[in-house]
């Protein structure tokens, strides 16, 4: 296959799409990074949380018929806004009933054993959610039929020579992702609750001495992580056809982004996701179709081996 250098237009198009897609990845990564950063838990059910968010959007828009009642854009915004509290509550309960109970009545378990057990439990949760999704929703891929997916904003800054198309659904998703990530940043750094969460992550024992209920912090974290992932799901659903196993398409992107941002650095995860999005889109310029998926892994492995603290991480993992 002869290699021809991609034109400027194609490069700009890839960068623009990469930034949009990357922002959405950024939100997913932030949600996963939040759970890892504060609870030290590798959450395997993250992809399935995303899937639930997608079906939630479908239920609001088509199931309740809201998109024909109030138009698809308002209905979508409503779905996104509703997803956060709804899935926050589910995550909260999930932690209360399942994850948080591990180790609670077994004081002999070490922190590492608790995390390992929780990890396997998230694998179990993932199986239940994805296969339960199959039972409830069926295996046929579906999509949100919104006009947004087929509309594009055209950027034409070079007098018609170079045209860059920006898909409206992706713009909306990127804006929502940025807003949610900024909101999380403000929550973590400006509010008492956020400071408590960070303190509980930094030094759980000292946090207890400061009157912080660490278990409650973990419940809030898990709820928030779930809520934000579901929010990302409602947004991705606008341009990505989905089925109950759709989580697998995204889970590696999420892990790669979190590692890239530096394990434990919550906001670093956003930049990690953004870079993954860019790399993925840029790779379409030079790589054959089937190999594009590998770029994420190659970048992921390179980062791991060369700079395990991540591109934006501060230091090596806390012991």
């Amino acid at each position, binding site marked *: 296959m002869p290699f021809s250098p991609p034109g400027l237009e194609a490069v700009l198009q890839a960068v623009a799409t990469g930034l949009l897609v990357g922002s959405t990845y950024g939100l997913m990564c932030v949600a996963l990074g939040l759970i890892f950063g504060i609870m030290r838990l*590798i959450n395997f059910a993250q992809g399935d949380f995303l899937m639930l968010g997608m079906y939630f959007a479908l239920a609001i828009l088509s199931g309740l018929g809201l998109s024909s009642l109030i138009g698809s854009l308002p209905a979508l915004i409503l779905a996104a806004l509703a997803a956060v509290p709804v899935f926050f509550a589910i995550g909260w309960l999930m932690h209360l009933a399942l994850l948080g109970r591990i180790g609670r009545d077994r004081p002999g378990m070490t922190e590492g054993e608790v995390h390992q057990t929780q990890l396997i439990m998230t*694998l179990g949760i993932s199986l239940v*959610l994805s*296969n339960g999704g199959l*039972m409830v929703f069926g295996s046929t891929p579906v999509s949100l039929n919104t006009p947004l997916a087929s509309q594009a904003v055209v950027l034409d800054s070079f007098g018609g020579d170079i045209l860059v198309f920006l898909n409206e659904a992706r713009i909306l998703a990127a804006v929502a992702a940025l807003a949610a990530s900024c909101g999380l940043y403000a929550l973590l750094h400006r509010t008492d609750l956020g400071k408590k969460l960070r303190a509980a992550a930094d030094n759980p024992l000292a946090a207890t001495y400061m009157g912080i209920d660490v278990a409650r912090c973990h419940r809030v974290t898990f709820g928030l992580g779930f809520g934000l992932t579901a929010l990302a799901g409602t947004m991705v659903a606008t341009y990505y056809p989905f089925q109950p196993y759709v989580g697998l398409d995204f889970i590696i992107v999420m892990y790669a982004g979190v590692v890239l941002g530096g394990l434990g650095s919550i906001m670093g995860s956003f930049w990690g996701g953004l870079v993954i999005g860019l790399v993925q889109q840029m790779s379409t310029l030079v790589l054959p179709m089937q*190999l594009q998926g*590998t770029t994420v892994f190659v970048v992921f492995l390179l980062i*791991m081996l060369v700079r395990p603290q991540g591109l934006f991480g501060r230091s090596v*993992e806390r012991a």
Partner: protein
Amino acid sequence: MFSQRPRLAYIAICALVAAYGCAILFTTNSYYQLMLALVPVWAVMGLAWNLFSGYSGLVSFGHAAFFGIGAYTTTLLFAKAGVTPWIGIPLAAVTGSLAGIIIGAITFRLRGHYFALAMLAYPLAMLYVFEWAGFQEVSLPMKRENAALYMQFSDPRWNALIGLGLLVLALLVSLKVERSRFGMSLLAIKQNEIAAQVAGIDAFRWKLKAIALSGALAGAAGGFYAVILLVVTPNTVFGLATSAQALIVTMFGGVGTLWGPVVGAFLLVPASEILHAELGGKLPGIQGVVFGIAIILVMMKMPQGIAWAVRDRFLPRRGRPAQAVSASAVERLATPFVLPPHAAIMLEAEGICRSFGGVRAVADVSFQVRTQEILGIIGPNGAGKTTLFNVLNGLVTPDRGAIRLSGRDITGLPPSRICALGVGRTFQVARVFARMSLVENVVVGAFVGTATDAEAAERAREALGRVGLGALAEAPAEALTNCELRQLEVARALASRPRLLLMDEPFAGLDAGEVRAFMSLIRTLRDDGLTIVIIEHTMHAMVKLVDRFVVLDHGSVIADGAPQDVVRDRTVITAYLGEKWVPDAVA
């Protein structure tokens, strides 16, 4: 070798073969015959995962890489070159093992979560590569003639029997590993890699061996899987589900135990297949949901897995022998030992410097230890005592300076080499394998310098005798008191028959009587010819024990001399003991 019931495992394997063989013979439904061939596949996969991750503690999310490579090796050899799976499956084991070595060599520098996540990437990257290379779906060609030669039996029960054979092989390999220095070394690494290296275990080499063997088993499982399914796709063999399955059957059954993965696979695989067969048509995904719920419940009720829970329930835990009271008074030489004034120099540190991120932890430290001397290194917390120890046994390389052991330069050697040269070390926090016997706990230290495991066990017993725990050799470590745990820690260091013993705060947490007993143990060891260096936080007990003190403060030696002189030294009093110090109270 080190276990109490070596024969029991072989009997259990025979029983398994008999029972499973009968089940295979009497199964007529072809779907269930296929299932009976799948159970061993996942059991072997679980054993492969357990062999590496279960024993070494490095969690792998990427065992699908080895499984998939094995599956494709067998399939492609058959489809493209006509090589029979009878040869293809062993070759799958070889390629799986090679993949393990390569992946391990690259990835072992990562630890904890980083290692786990990096492992996740390998099979998924391979998935795309195999898709790109045009192997989206490769079928095994049908061989009507000479079916048996190509492992294509008309009666699928043969497949189940071959699977059973593979499982027995994997069990025997695992058993061999578990009962030998291989498995014990891995467990020691899992518990504390640093302590293991200091005990003379070359962690990198053992981990590499483990992942190679694990990759071989997983590769063979993958090759066989391809044979029974007759078609491979990148998604089925490299997918996340494959890695997860290995982890799930093991965790469900019990990690770090031979029977865990087998129990997990024997319960989960049939349950899932039967559910799929009976209800899958009406409720697709039902088996996944039930599977998931089962995992969640097991993790909540018995987080260690079923095998451990059953063992604790039905096999009585070994307690300590009733009459064995460890108060075997250690006999001392009649005359107190006097260090000859011109004893040979055992250890010499010269101008050791070491900084961490700009902070000088140890600055230009020089001192000597003479043969059969007891040297105390004291100083306030943060004075650099532990860093100095870490430099002495190779855990930390000094920025400058040299360490000589009996005149030989050992600077920069890895800890396991330094241990082999005769430097033993105890740690402040005694880490033990609670469920294992004292011999099994101590034997880890004896692998250095012994050729056979029997010899190592012999040395372990001898070391236990030296610290006065000989009568408890077969008792589990969880039955010990705090003081006995300390003695166990010393025994582990003695098992390598060191010439020089470094002890890190041996008295912390002991009461006055225990401290006295421990001091007499240390004196006895010296009388037997050992040279001993002790770091301690407090001076009081040490004054009576040591021949000489080296006092550290802010990374530098501020005093070096006999106890009675050091406690009156102005610098030492100001920097460490405090102005209110009354030397006569101790000297």
